[in-house]
């Protein structure tokens, strides 16, 4: 089960947020303040991973209830995906979202200013929906 996707830019602002299966839970568990907490968690865990190993960041972390997948691009764009515990690592899919959707529809958009404030691009959000819903672990 895939719950939600967050994208943060290099100024640590949340520029994209999308939730799936909203009705299956009681309420959407994550609100605006939460995105700041999520960013803080990912940044701190990334720094721990950098200190302990030679790699650039961590791949996933899990608690007793959910699993979080993390991918960071060289330009410090951060993609964070929340899923249930049964899902295998989706870091490659996050890279695919960046390569085939973000770069194509957001970066190459001539109307897009260089600093992306929020992604309100229908091609991008439709593409993300299609990609996530095609994954075997979606439902």
């Amino acid at each position, binding site marked *: 089960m895939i*719950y*939600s996707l967050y994208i943060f830019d290099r100024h640590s602002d949340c520029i994209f947020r999308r*939730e799936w299966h909203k009705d299956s*839970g*009681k*309420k*959407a*568990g*994550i609100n605006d303040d*939460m995105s700041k*907490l*999520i960013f*803080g*968690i990912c940044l*701190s*865990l990334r*720094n*721990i*991973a950098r*200190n*302990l*190993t*030679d*790699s650039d*960041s*961590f*791949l*996933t*972390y*899990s*608690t*007793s*209830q*959910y699993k979080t997948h993390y991918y960071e691009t060289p330009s410090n764009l951060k993609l964070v995906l*929340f899923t249930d515990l049964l899902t295998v*690592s989706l870091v490659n899919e996050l890279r695919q979202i960046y390569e085939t959707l973000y770069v194509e529809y957001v970066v190459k958009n001539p109307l897009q200013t260089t600093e992306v404030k929020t992604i309100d691009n229908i091609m991008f959000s439709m593409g993300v929906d299609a990609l996530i819903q095609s994954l075997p672990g979606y439902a």
Partner: protein
Amino acid sequence: MGVLSIFILSKAGGLIYHKDFGFGLKKLNNSNDYLVIAGTFHSVHALTTRVNPLNTHSSGLLTMEMETCTLHCLQTLTGLKFVVVTDNNQSNVSVVSSTIYEIYSDYVMKNPFYTLDMPIRCHKFDRALNQYISTVE
């Protein structure tokens, strides 16, 4: 070599024990950096209980996967955290961390000269831990 490193954190987030095994991890040249890692981990652990897409009760961070190794955390009922870093192929880590907890109970908690929440300097604990880790495959 399965287990790469062990951190023990007091319930306030202070690092009370740290030991590396083998050469799988980067050596930090400043021992303060390990204190920082422990403190950061303690606060991230608290945050991960709050951030929950399901709105149900969740434990804190249990495992964190990295490219070369995996970090596992066991939080005891008393708030102590046992953080065990292993390579990615290590199985049964929950057994390893609870055995380390057992060794801690036997050689640290039963040591009459040990003050709670202070850094662990007990030779018998060191010896028992080394002996146990060398048997972990």
